[in-house]
């Protein structure tokens, strides 16, 4: 009888990471040398290495969630409502070439190619907690740049009060944007999220283009997504094609779908339950016991002042 044994270790486990990382750098360097002046490098595929120095001051000291968990357990309703739909169907999304339109109440509206956005801004790695409104959480090492840096480029006018972020609308790339039985659709498309301008300009608010030292995988919102760590995960819009500065509070997707359950702010708050379930605890993916959920997902020191004097039970 043939007894198959699981492979106990791979070459990666016995090779010093410093060694093989240097090797990769050498290869990347060699590839870059072959480019002619003025020629832009080919778009990196999802999963290609992407380097950025970690901003320790704004990073959690906790170990990140397993990469496999972060790429197979996702809410990305454009692919379907099940957690495994995004990983299964993500190949239908084409994240390059990709243009992000930045306009609205700004002095310098512009359509940016995502490659230019990456070139224009120094990339940082930030290890953030991600708390889903469903009661689970992860720790993700994102790679990106502050949304504030991009907003400053386009120079918001004095009337701009809010930022509206829109996800790509394309049923050919997002299968769940096609209507289902009886024309049923889980949400209204395109997906729209929004932030108050001061929230958008906060140094914690990130536009991510990678994670875990890699180009952002499709199922995690490639090629560019928002990350607002003190709000429930759905606020962090994925696969963004438009960033618009507006005067009025935007009507955001989940608020439109169920206003009694999801508000515009959606700050992580253990004291304010979802109308149907408690938000007091969460399960950190990879851990057995539930842990207590922290106000503003643990970022109260940095962001609580944004909401001074507001009734957070009312503005949930």
């Amino acid at each position, binding site marked *: 009888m043939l007894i198959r044994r699981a492979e106990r270790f791979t070459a990666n486990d016995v090779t010093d990471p410093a060694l093989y990382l240097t090797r990769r750098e050498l290869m990347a360097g060699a590839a870059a040398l072959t480019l002619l002046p003025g020629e832009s490098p080919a778009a990196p595929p999802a999963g290609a290495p992407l380097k950025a120095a970690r901003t320790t001051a704004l990073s959690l000291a906790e170990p990140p*969630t*397993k990469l*496999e*968990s*972060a790429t*197979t*357990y996702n809410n990305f*309703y454009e692919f379907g*409502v099940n*957690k*495994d739909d995004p990983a299964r169907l993500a190949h239908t999304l084409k994240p390059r070439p990709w243009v992000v339109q930045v306009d609205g109440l700004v002095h310098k509206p512009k359509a940016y190619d995502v490659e230019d956005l990456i070139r224009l801004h120094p990339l940082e790695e930030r290890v953030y907690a991600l708390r889903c409104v*469903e009661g*689970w959480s992860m720790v993700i090492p994102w790679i990106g740049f502050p949304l504030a840096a991009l907003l400053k480029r386009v120079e918001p006018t004095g009337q701009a009060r809010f930022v509206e972020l829109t996800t790509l609308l394309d049923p050919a790339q997002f299968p769940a944007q096609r209507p*289902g*039985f009886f024309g*049923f659709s*889980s*949400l209204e498309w395109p997906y729209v999220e929004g932030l108050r301008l001061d929230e958008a300009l906060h140094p914690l608010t990130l536009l991510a283009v990678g994670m875990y030292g890699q180009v952002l995988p499709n199922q995690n919102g490639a090629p560019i997504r928002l990350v607002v760590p003190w709000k429930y995960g759905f606020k962090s819009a994925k696969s963004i094609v438009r960033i618009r500065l507006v005067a009025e509070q935007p009507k955001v997707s*989940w608020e439109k*779908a*169920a206003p009694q*359950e999801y508000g515009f702010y959606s700050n992580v708050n253990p004291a304010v*339950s979802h109308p*149907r*379930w*408690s938000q*007091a*605890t969460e*399960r950190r*993916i*990879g851990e*057995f*016991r*539930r842990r207590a959920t922290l106000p503003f997902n643990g970022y109260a020191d940095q962001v609580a002042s944004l909401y001074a004097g507001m009734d957070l039970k009312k503005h949930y």
Partner: protein
Amino acid sequence: MTRRVRLALKSAAWAACLAPLGWLAYRFATGDLTANPISFVTTTLGDWTLRILLASLAMTPLRIVFGLSWPVALRRLLGLFAFFYVCLHFTVWIVLDFFFDWPRMWEDILKRPYITVGMLALLTLVPLAATSTAGMVRRLGARTWTRLHRLAYAAGALGCLHFLWLAKVGRTDQYWHAAALVALLGVRLGDAIVRRVRRRRRAAAPAAAGVRTP
């Protein structure tokens, strides 16, 4: 129905009812219970509780609509399997999900309507499982027993409500399960009305002896 057919039928039902558990065991063994295993196991067990409960409630309607008598032989087996799955579902919630955090669970049972009705559905199934033996049918008398076991519909309704109230906006499975329950209840209700009308007609026309009303 011969003994052999009966045995084959029941074996098939056993196998079908144990398949979801086997599938979970297989995924456990292969380390494939998703990134959030506790949530996955809880919802899978809950899904199959409701499906098997609805299947048990479908056996009599199958006789009414299609004139099939064999499904009724599986009713008790399916009902007991639904009870088995709901017990597993509940145990996972207590042990794995909340790890015996009684105050928090108690608070959820009282405060969260979907947990309240889920709890009620479970409690409704307890007397049904306890009186499922032939001995209990005899002791209670067929009439009382039949009345008591109509609670199965209440359990089905509470189970569907539990699912409707916990499902996130945008999902649809909860509506399909509720629609199945409504259809099954509709058949029973329609049948009860038809029988009542027939009984009345028979009572009103005793003179027409020998003439059978349809």
